[in-house]
């Protein structure tokens, strides 16, 4: 699939961040005035295990170019074991998406603790860069094939 390079094009990146670790880490990045690309938007969830794999599909459907799921490091989950389930679910999800043609770089999961502001910055910066190189995602995108969104009452 050839991608027309538009130098001004900015990817749309969605990051699901768990409230106790990664969201706090992202706040800390702010507190430390670290800089990272504007194209990353965070959705706050209580725990990475709250993230339903269908949310990922929805994001691609609606035109996201990359999706990130971030949570506490295994063993540090605020809810004791949530991220162990996250790990299993998304290892499979990532592979299934790849099997359907989505580059694994477009859907990643990472463990980022509340103190790892720099890791948050580095991760989103790197993901943003990687997606920029991949170009816009057209796979699984709704607008390209149909009019109107799903489920609008």
């Amino acid at each position, binding site marked *: *699939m050839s991608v027309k390079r538009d130098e001004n094009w900015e990817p749309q990146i969605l990051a699901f961040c768990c409230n106790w670790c990664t969201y706090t880490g992202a706040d800390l990045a702010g507190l430390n005035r670290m800089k990272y690309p504007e194209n990353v938007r965070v959705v706050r969830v209580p725990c990475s295990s709250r993230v339903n*794999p*269908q949310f990922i*599909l*929805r994001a691609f*459907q609606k035109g996201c170019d990359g999706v990130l799921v971030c949570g506490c490091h*295994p*063993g540090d989950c605020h809810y004791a*074991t949530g991220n*162990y*389930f996250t*790990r*299993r*679910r*998304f*290892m*499979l*999800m*990532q*592979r*299934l*998406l*790849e*099997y*359907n*043609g*989505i*580059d694994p770089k477009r859907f*990643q*999961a*990472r*463990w980022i603790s509340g103190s790892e502001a720099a890791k948050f910055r580095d991760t989103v910066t790197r993901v943003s860069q990687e997606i920029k190189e991949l170009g816009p995602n057209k*796979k*699984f*995108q*709704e607008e*390209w*094939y*149909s009019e109107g*969104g*799903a*489920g*609008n*009452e």
Partner: protein
Amino acid sequence: MSSIIEELQSTVKKLLEDGTVGYVIGWGATRFPDRTTPVFITRPEDAHKLVWNHYCVNGTAKYALDDRYPEKKIGIIIRGCDSRAVNRMIQDNQLKRENLYLIGIPCDGKENPVCEGCQHKNPLVYDVLIGTPVEEKINPDRFKEVAEFEKLSQDEKYEYWAKQYDKCIHCYACRNVCPACNCKECYADQYRVGWQGKQNNRNSNQVYGLTRAFHVGDRCIECGECERVCPMGLPIMRQTKKMLKDINDLFGDYECGLNDSRPHVLGEFDLQDRDEFM
């Protein structure tokens, strides 16, 4: 074969006569010699309508879900795959073993391509066994097709599936026949939450296909009913088998619906699970 039919019919007749079961789900003849149809035998005198031949392809177990709270036991004639379906539905709390009377019948493969890779021809659970067990064989090529497909480039994969989903007519036949699809109300029917559009277009079908794969992939018993009933001939099992293959690779040997299968691969974890998200 004929003696097996006789044994089957007489067993069913007796079960109906003595009131052990309310009815028996099995296969009956149709106008065509190479077709059978699922039948529900309710009277002993109808037991002779049961057939057992190379064309008994329909899965019998899922019908029990339409009668979750039966007054009498439901008799089901089950092959290996049907017994795995029963096991899976019991693990999912959808059926109660005490509500079922399982008439096992070893199966040497039917007019269905999926039977060639079958690793469990003999019923794994039953109350009575008709005939004698057949030899089981391990299928070394269980994930061969998936492994081949994995070699394609991402764009090739995407194109392949996109074309497949262009064919899909969003009829939900694959869902309705699948023993792992046992929700009371499918997510796809819940338009208020808006998980899924009802439109029949590429994207809507893609999302349905992937979501379905993720919903049932960890519990797929590899019966192949989804592909058999698909009017458009989509290779649906290729998606769920990918899930199964990854589960095998990542979380240890796994085959679903066996008597000792782990019931919740995604509802459990191991501290030693591989970690790719560091």
